[in-house]
């Protein structure tokens, strides 16, 4: 598995995969859940797949009964899930706003 520099957009997609590791995700579903357009999402999926973070599979349907061809789904690998968790935590830390100074009561005497 290749290391990837996770951008906030990539983090949004990874978060969906981390919600349920065994749940295969489809392109259309990811577009809906992340609010991303196809032009952003599909290159990202290709990047994850090329880096070995996602594996591709085929939807188990009867194309004649469904009236459409089976879609491709993606599942996150175990190693990628661990790496994603660490990187998401780092990213969250990076974007966390600095803590406010200690609050003191104005004019208080206590």
């Amino acid at each position, binding site marked *: *598995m*290749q290391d990837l520099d996770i951008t906030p957009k990539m983090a949004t997609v990874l978060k969906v995969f981390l919600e349920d590791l065994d749940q295969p995700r*489809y*392109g*259309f579903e990811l577009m809906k859940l992340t609010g991303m*357009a*196809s*032009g*952003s999402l*599909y*290159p990202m999926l*290709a*990047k994850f*797949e*090329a*880096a*070995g*973070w*996602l*594996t*591709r599979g*085929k*939807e188990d349907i009867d194309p004649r009964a469904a*009236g*459409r*061809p*089976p*879609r*491709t789904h993606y599942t996150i*690998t175990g190693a990628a899930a661990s790496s994603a968790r660490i990187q998401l935590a780092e990213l969250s830390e990076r974007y966390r706003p600095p803590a406010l100074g200690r609050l003191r009561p104005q004019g208080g005497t206590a």
Partner: protein
Amino acid sequence: VSAFLWTALGVLGSFGLAAIGDMMSEEVRDRLDHLPQAILRLAAMRVNEMERAILYEEVWLPDLAYFLRGDEARPVTRLYHGVRFALGILAASKRISCTLSSASGRTPPKQLTRLNLRPKLRNEIQQRLQVNAASALSVRAWSSGSGKIQRRVIITLDDDRRFQMTPGRFESMILEEEERA
């Protein structure tokens, strides 16, 4: 008589125009309905040949079909969603291709070209692919891939029809064939 004739002609003419209008709108609707697929085909042309069939037939087209299945009754919404989806893919197709190519480039793909098949193997492939007799099948690309990228064997028949197979069984068939040769 003349006024009656003109009225009748007018009524017939309006019916005729309405029919032609209907036919034209049906034609336009049908053509517009295929616009997203046409854009996806264009996007596929911009993709490396090795990934073209997989991306177009297994990823983009099924997703488009699923994407539009709920919009059947609303042609304008269907067109809007379909075109938007396909244009996004078109704009990103080069990037997708480069990403996948660079990944598979880490282990160079084996190229097997123009394979003359022995009858047993040919029959087996024909049976698997459910195609009629072909004197020879050429294996255009053997995408060995790397990491988690699935390997695919793309088989082109003499009449230019193309089929893809996962390598598992095909690989062993080829090995058996090579050993026999």
